[in-house]
């Protein structure tokens, strides 16, 4: 019996953002946009969803008079990501 994959993470852009954030301490919005090759609008919406789920922290501030958004994965996000990968591996292992 397989656990259902977390619907918050089982989406292309949100999973990409979480995979990037799990590898770093913190990243700016521009970094996530560049690496995921997504539009600013779509990325903002998905970041908000991850924030609402408690998976990431978002800090908005000003740097050189320009708005800057810094994202950081939360301990809850790390646990959810690890659980997601575990379930994914179990699913793929069973389907080999």
């Amino acid at each position: 019996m397989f656990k259902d994959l977390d619907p918050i993470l089982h989406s292309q852009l949100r999973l990409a953002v979480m995979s990037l954030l799990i590898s770093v301490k913190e990243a700016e919005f521009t970094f996530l946009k560049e690496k995921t090759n997504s539009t600013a609008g779509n990325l903002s919406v998905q970041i908000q969803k991850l924030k609402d789920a408690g998976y990431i922290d978002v800090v908005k501030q000003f740097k050189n008079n320009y708005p800057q958004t810094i994202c950081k994965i939360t301990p809850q996000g790390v646990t959810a990501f690890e659980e997601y990968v575990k379930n994914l591996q179990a699913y793929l292992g069973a389907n080999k």
Partner: protein
Amino acid sequence: MEERNISEQESLQLIQEMIGKAKSHYHESGASAILWGAVIGTCGLISFAEQQWNFSIGFDIWFLTLAAIVPGIWINIRAAKKRIVKTHATAAIDIVWNVFGISIVCVVLYGNIIPSISEGFFAKENIELLSHNMLTGETKKYWPTTLSLSSVFLIIYAFPTLATGWISKFKPMIIGAVVCYCFFIASLFTPFKYDMLLCGLAGIGNWLIPGLLLNRRYRKAKSAHV
């Protein structure tokens, strides 16, 4: 990339791809290493040359290190402003270099304060240090300098370089640090003049060369993204 559901196989590939992208992102220009490598290298080599060929440039060349502090801070602030991602490795490396800065200041204080303080302590016990030349019979007051302080500097130079090289898996820095430790061992047996030469060479091997290699890598990575 858009917001859409994906298959389990695609998920795994995406995770691997993104982790790879995060790891391959490179932003270290090596400017700080180039600056300090050039400064320490110049100071050490000129100091050695002054003693080897008996001339003076009119001022203590090591004051150049003080002059380099302001551009050094400016380079670090500029690099921090440009940084759009902070990895766990860069956070650790930043701490290592801050500790290095504190340690260098402490060693400079140690080298400058210990002689006069030691003299004061000896004076309180009615002791005066004297040096006696066995050949001429001349006896004069001995100023209690810190012996082979440059050996201590060589250990301090090697420590952050080895830590940075090890954390970032950057071989030129690991090699530079190992060479610096070898210079430290050599400096235990060499007179002051050659210690200066070793310090200069350590600056070049430890920071200048790895810094130039870092800069080349940075420019390559930057041009690949344009």
